[in-house]
């Protein structure tokens, strides 16, 4: 049977690429070290497949059809379309249709109703962490695009439940695969709003603290605070998926630091699975 061998989360943000040269050296060093540490832990877990939980930043979906959740079930995904991501080393990213379709079928069977796609494009949300983790070998990637960009979005409780569902589905997959999960995005940031550039460090630190508490406390806090913490903070949903997959047992904080030059409260976490 398949098994979950790791659950991680890491921030992303276009300016981590575009403004990287202007980030103060000490912050640059810490962000790089945190990504690399996650890469080291992921490599040590020897995953055959990595489920990457990320938003779609208008690369696949538009107002015509914006699914709450879309699982990538194809043989491959396209690399990032953003011109400034041209140096990302993979133009095509191999998937794992067998596991991905099993996840989709189990989700349907258990009343979760995801969309599926046989050919997704993975934008900077998925690809910046994969790039900066400096993996020697990219595992097969099963994308899970979770809407945290365009309202209405899946509830926070549902995102946690999605994580638990993924864990059950992984455990019931017949092939002996080693599977890891990476939630990307967050923590606080604000994009295209009058508050753009604001980082809510107190919100971020309390969020991190509450990941060690009950999921109910965490979700109640987020429901109360997210509306005033910047629209990018909604991506904490992807962390909740990793949290649910890990059984809500809390994570080891690899690092957290606000990085004003990239306008993101940068967080990096590794769960106890």
């Amino acid at each position, binding site marked *: 049977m398949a098994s979950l061998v790791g659950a991680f989360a890491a921030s992303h943000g276009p300016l981590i690429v575009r403004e990287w040269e202007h980030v103060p050296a000490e912050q640059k060093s810490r962000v790089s070290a945190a990504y690399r540490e996650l890469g080291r832990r992921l490599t040590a877990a020897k995953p055959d497949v990595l489920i990457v939980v990320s938003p779609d930043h*208008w*690369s696949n979906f538009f107002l015509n059809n914006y699914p709450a959740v879309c699982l990538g079930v194809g043989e491959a995904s396209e690399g990032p379309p953003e011109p400034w991501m041209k140096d990302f080393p993979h133009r095509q990213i191999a998937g794992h249709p067998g596991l991905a379709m099993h996840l989709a079928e189990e989700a349907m069977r258990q009343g979760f109703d995801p969309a599926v796609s046989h050919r997704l494009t993975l934008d900077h949300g998925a690809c910046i962490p994969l790039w900066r983790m400096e993996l020697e070998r990219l595992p097969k990637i099963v994308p899970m695009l979770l809407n945290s960009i*365009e309202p209405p979005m899946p509830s926070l409780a549902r995102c946690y439940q999605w994580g638990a569902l993924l864990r059950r589905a992984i455990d019931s997959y017949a092939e002996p695969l080693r599977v890891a999960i990476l939630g990307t995005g967050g923590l606080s940031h604000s*994009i295209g*709003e*009058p508050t753009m*550039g604001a980082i809510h460090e107190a919100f971020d630190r309390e969020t991190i603290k509450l990941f060690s508490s009950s999921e109910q406390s965490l979700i109640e806090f987020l429901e109360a605070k997210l509306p005033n913490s910047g*629209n990018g903070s909604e991506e904490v949903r992807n962390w909740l998926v990793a949290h649910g997959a890990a059984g809500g047992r809390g994570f080891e904080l690899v690092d957290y630091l606000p990085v004003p030059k990239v*306008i993101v409260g940068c967080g990096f976490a590794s769960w106890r699975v």
Partner: protein
Amino acid sequence: MMRDYWLSKLFFDLQSPALVAEFRAERDKVLARYPLDERVKQAIAENDAPFLAARTNAYLLRYYFFALGMKDDEFIRKLNSG
């Protein structure tokens, strides 16, 4: 939450570098392909960020002004000028 579909579609399509180049060279020609309200066209011409922000997704708005070549500081200043 209000969404102007065609305004949003324009911004979505302007993620294409080729269309951005065309938009910069012949903006009216590109705009003519989208059934935009005259007031929306005026807001585009005037870079009226608060007006546009009320009608589209914040990420799409940011992508649009980035595609125009506007620096973030100037974009944020415009967003707060309403």
